[in-house]
């Protein structure tokens, strides 16, 4: 059940278009900065396959210049997800 957050940099002058594309992309929640050309993207997928499929979609978005992974919660990465797994199984 991966939840990941990224810093997304739009191509020059394409911030608004990128926001629109990401809003329509499944499993994505977008939080644009108010005063800089940068967005925070949070993805929430069911499993690793869905996560990988989403990653391919994101890499194909032409308005997106650069994507930086910041935070990932998954069983493999850290304790926080251990807790989430427990809850998800309840």
């Amino acid at each position: 059940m991966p939840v990941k957050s990224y810093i997304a940099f739009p191509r020059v002058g394409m911030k608004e278009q990128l926001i629109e594309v990401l809003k329509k992309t499944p499993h994505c929640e977008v939080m644009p900065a108010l005063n800089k050309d940068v967005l925070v993207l949070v993805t929430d997928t069911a499993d690793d396959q869905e996560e990988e499929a989403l990653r391919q979609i994101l890499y194909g978005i032409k308005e997106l210049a650069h994507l930086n992974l910041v935070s990932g919660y998954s069983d493999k990465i850290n304790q926080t997800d251990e807790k989430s797994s427990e809850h998800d199984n309840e």
Partner: protein
Amino acid sequence: MTMNRRHFLKKAAAASAMAAVAAMLPGVLFASDIESDHFPPGIDWTKAPCRFCGVGCGILVGVQNGKAVAVKGDPNSSVNKGMLCVKGYHQTMCISSADRLTKALVKKHGKYVETSMEEALDLVAAKMKETIDRHGKDAVAMYTSGQSTIPEGYVASKLMKGAIGTNNLECNARLCMASAVAGFLTTFGADEPMGCYEDIDHANVFILWGNNMAEMHPVLFSRLLDKRLTRKDVSIIDLATRTTRTSKAADKSILFKPQGDLAIANAICYELINNGWVNKSFVEKHVVFRKGKTDIGYGLEDKFAFKDEAQPIDFEQYKSFLEDYRPDKVEALTGVSAGDIKFLASLYGNPNKKVVSFWCMGMNQHTRGTWMNNLVYNIHLLTGKISQPGNGPFSLTGQPSACGTAREVGTFTHKLPKGVVTNKKHRELAAKIWKVPYDRIPDKPTYHATEMFRAVDRGEIKFIWIQATNPLVSLPKTSRYRPGMQKKSCFIVVSDVFPTPTTDVADVILPAAWHIEKSGLYGNSERRTQYWDRMTDAPGEAMPDAWMTIEVARRMGYGDLFPYSKEKHHEEIYNEYRQFHAGKQHNMAPLAILKKRSGVIWPYIEETGKSTLWRYNSKYDPACDPDKDFDFYGNADGKAVIWQRPYEAAPEMPDNEYPFWLNTGRVIEHWHTGSMTRRIPVLHQAVPHAYVELHPDDARQLGIVNGQKVKVISRRGTTILPASINERGLPARGQVFVPFFDEKMLINDVTLDAFCPISKEPDYKKCAVRIEKL
């Protein structure tokens, strides 16, 4: 509950990313309210100070089923008002790292063998005792940390100075804050800043002296940026040797040549006097002028000794000394135009502007670090811009309790919990509170940090116990001190949470409890003492450092001096320690108050129950003589000192063989030597290894491209790192920068162990290297 849990995870992930963006692009704003509480029910939130830097942000740790599951900023903390940086949010994620030390390890026939804590502590006590019996008490030493809690530092001091009777106690804060301490003591006669973070809310101008605040004090820097956004009359000036994220966010970035800061500060004072911007009445009432020795050396040789001698001078003598520092005369030396120096002076000199100077390692890790601290105080004293809301010099600390533990408890060779070992009254007070014979506390300091590890190398120290620090990554010139520590002549005990290059050379490794696995107190940069309660259990046999010290003390026969209980020892120790600071000048808040509040700034005023926000100003500080407007009561005459301190060159400068200056430092994602943050996946992934920043023109000339492996070579050693060109920071031509967090790319094998002869703090910012392609 599942929905809530997912929501919480998404909020936490978003918060981390926003914090990361804020660090990358200071001043960035998001509409989403990341602090709103969308956490699932059943989480207990407990307050604490952040484990990492000296800003001392208040955190709330969420615990569920005995595990830390989340961290958020404490909205009640006036330090950070709910904000945290990327390290702060992720701090608890290192706790359950797979290689966590949970059992004592004793080296037997070259191999580490798991041993019970009881047995390991027996061995430590026996070895310490045996070493004292055979070689004398100055053959044993303790080296502790600005990350030790106040109780941990206190019992270390009591064991070494009060019980055993040796001043062989030092701590890693010597490497980061000693020049600040020496600066405060020589100018004001008392340590620690007069102001507080609330200065940020009042100032118009922030002048950052060699301080990459955007990365090193990120939450404070956000407060500066916030002020600039909300008020029109705020500007930030970055004065540095390298272009950093701070320079990019500043209103003006001024680059100077390494060591040129000494001449810049004097040139600013020249301008203040020359333009009639001196606050004459303040200077007449509250200041005296002195000069000290010059050509004072660099401590490069073992057993280097230096003692400054102050001589009184008058204003006219000081004024004529400054003639050599006319702005146009120092342009070549500093690399700063006369125009820019005059601009800086005009900011300090403008009576309508409130100015705060901030600094940290750039000025402290300096072979003339004490002088540099004195010189910035000179500027504020000449203009009278000191000890008032929004006006003041503000020395920031690096570590979370460099102030609270290292400086206030006094875990340095020359210090006692109150005062210094050379002062008879201070020794008498310590002996009385510790209930030990007065003559047991020696009246002479022994080894400062660098000299302590030289003494290990020379074979003089035969037993050393290192707690909560990693000197074989953080000392300068580890190329000498690592082989020194590998010698059989010294028995080495290391208490830590994780394995490090320092535990690698230990004879005994003791597993330590982490931050929230014990109760404790830290003191941050603004004199704020913060208490926290234990929140989770330490794994295996890990225990608080203070309790290890107590157990060893008891085994050595000092049980009567350490009558503390296991459950409440931190409280009992704090209550005992508080007696040292009784009185108006340094009164510490009672524990009951600290438990309720997100910290209290000392001196705590009993009558009002409030913090003292600005010391030495009788409007705010009841310790002042009420008949004076300002009273620098650390000095017997109530006056601060303006010091005549010249420019003197660095000990090692670039030449034909080693043509580059090497500067070292930190990055926002990693805490010091990385032993914790490199075990936090998010932070490790963000900056997985060190690098060497080069100016693009230098890189081109050397035929080096971004990411290419290069050798950084000095007269001491070599390190191989990938080149970083036009990435995070931009060194000036002829300079390179390397962060020191990476134990696999040890830049301190290359650095020089020269130090300030007054403070004994090493200079990690300047030595000569050459760069070779692999």
